[in-house]
């Protein structure tokens, strides 16, 4: 391994790293927002919306991100809608992630036992208060492991962004290999930067999971 090569590549990777992080986390934010919204629509069986939510979840969970990105980046311009590559990446990640997050929230909401609701109602809480102070926070605690898992999954999914010519980490590595054939160095840095991106998430995630564990059911 040539360390001069590595040193000279680092600035390129750093730039790609920040682009990946920016798109990744904006996408995750969007995914959380969509996920909560969709899960609410399904949980409360909102007419029409619940139906649309169900179709949305199945559609996006069962198609690869690559297809979704192609659709946004190459498909939409055909009907006159052109979206910049970075927005496509964020949107694609948000829509894919939204379908995964929705499932996590929905199962969280669904697993709060009815005795919890009755306990709250018996105290005189309204249904809205019951949901706000009891059901939703409990569902959120239960959802933490799923949310963290999805975050890691989504950050890894950014590796397909190169397909719509976003200069993310994967794009940078492929590009450098194609230009200079320093495969070992390029791949080494790729792995290192992915670890830098993901390790803190899984470490902080485990800490958070342990923290909320005490706030869920159990003996």
């Amino acid at each position, binding site marked *: 391994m040539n360390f001069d090569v590595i040193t000279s590549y680092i600035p390129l990777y750093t730039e790609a790293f920040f682009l990946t992080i920016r798109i990744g986390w904006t996408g995750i934010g969007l995914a959380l927002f969509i996920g909560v919204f969709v899960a609410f629509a399904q949980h409360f069986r909102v007419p029409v919306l619940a139906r649309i939510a169900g179709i949305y979840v199945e559609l996006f969970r069962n198609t690869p991100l690559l297809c979704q990105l192609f659709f946004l980046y190459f498909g939409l311009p055909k009907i006159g809608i052109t979206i910049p590559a970075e927005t496509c990446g964020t949107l694609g990640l948000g829509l894919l992630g939204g379908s995964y997050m929705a499932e996590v929230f929905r199962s969280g909401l669904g697993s709060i036992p009815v005795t919890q609701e009755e306990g709250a109602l018996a*105290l005189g809480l309204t249904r809205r208060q019951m949901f706000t102070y009891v059901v939703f926070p409990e569902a959120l605690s239960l959802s933490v492991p799923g949310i963290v898992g999805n975050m890691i999954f989504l950050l890894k999914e950014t590796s397909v962004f190169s397909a719509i010519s976003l200069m993310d980490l994967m794009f940078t590595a492929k590009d450098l290999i194609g230009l200079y054939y320093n495969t070992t160095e390029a791949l080494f840095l790729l792995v290192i930067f992915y670890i830098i991106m993901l390790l803190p998430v899984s470490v902080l995630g485990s800490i958070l999971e342990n923290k909320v564990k005490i*706030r869920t059911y159990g003996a």
Partner: protein
Amino acid sequence: MDVDMRPILEVKNISKRYDDITVFENLNLQVKKGEVLVIVGPSGCGKSTLLRCLNALEPIQEGEIILDGEAIRPGSREVNKLREKVGMVFQSYDLFPHMTVLQNVMLAPIKVKKRDKKEVREEALALLDRVGLLSKKDQFPRQLSGGQKQRVAIVRALMMHPEVLLLDEITAALDPEMVQEVLEVVLSLAKEGRTMLIVTHEMQFARAVADRMIFIDGGHIVEEGTPEEFFEHPKTERLSSFLAKMRF
């Protein structure tokens, strides 16, 4: 036990059905202020259902439930107001797992009654102290034993200053060594003149705590009386055999 004559709770001719099952029909009951009524009966006779109806967690098909002069109708707007006056503790510990003990007991007074936080906190600490759980105030339910959880659940209900307290087999899910600590709390509440409706299978306890006993079977109140009459001189065959089965 200063029992005055005014009924705080009146159950008039209520019927409760689930589809094709009739749980009870034309049931009548009056509970006076300060009275402790213990309800016993075989499994499935509708004890839990009765308490749930009294707290409007279940709709009734006929009749009327009147609390402190006001009718309780499930679904109507005044239901929440009435639930504030009727505290309930269930068999399953239903503490909110994501809140500490103190947060659990402070939630309803603050959110429902909009009372001052500091004042509620002081009252909560005093009550937790009374049931011997002051040191647990910052623990989560998961960190408590079953008996401790039930004592917190009682405090949580008391924090709403209910006119009537409904207790549904609150020791049934507890290990034997924890039953006593919970029953002692209930006994002390009875001594201070709380109005309570208690469903229990603990016959010793029933006898000690009750001002009046009722025995429900087959959708009717089969027998009713003072603990003395009830346990020493059961009038019906059904009650005697029930008591025999409870090994009393």
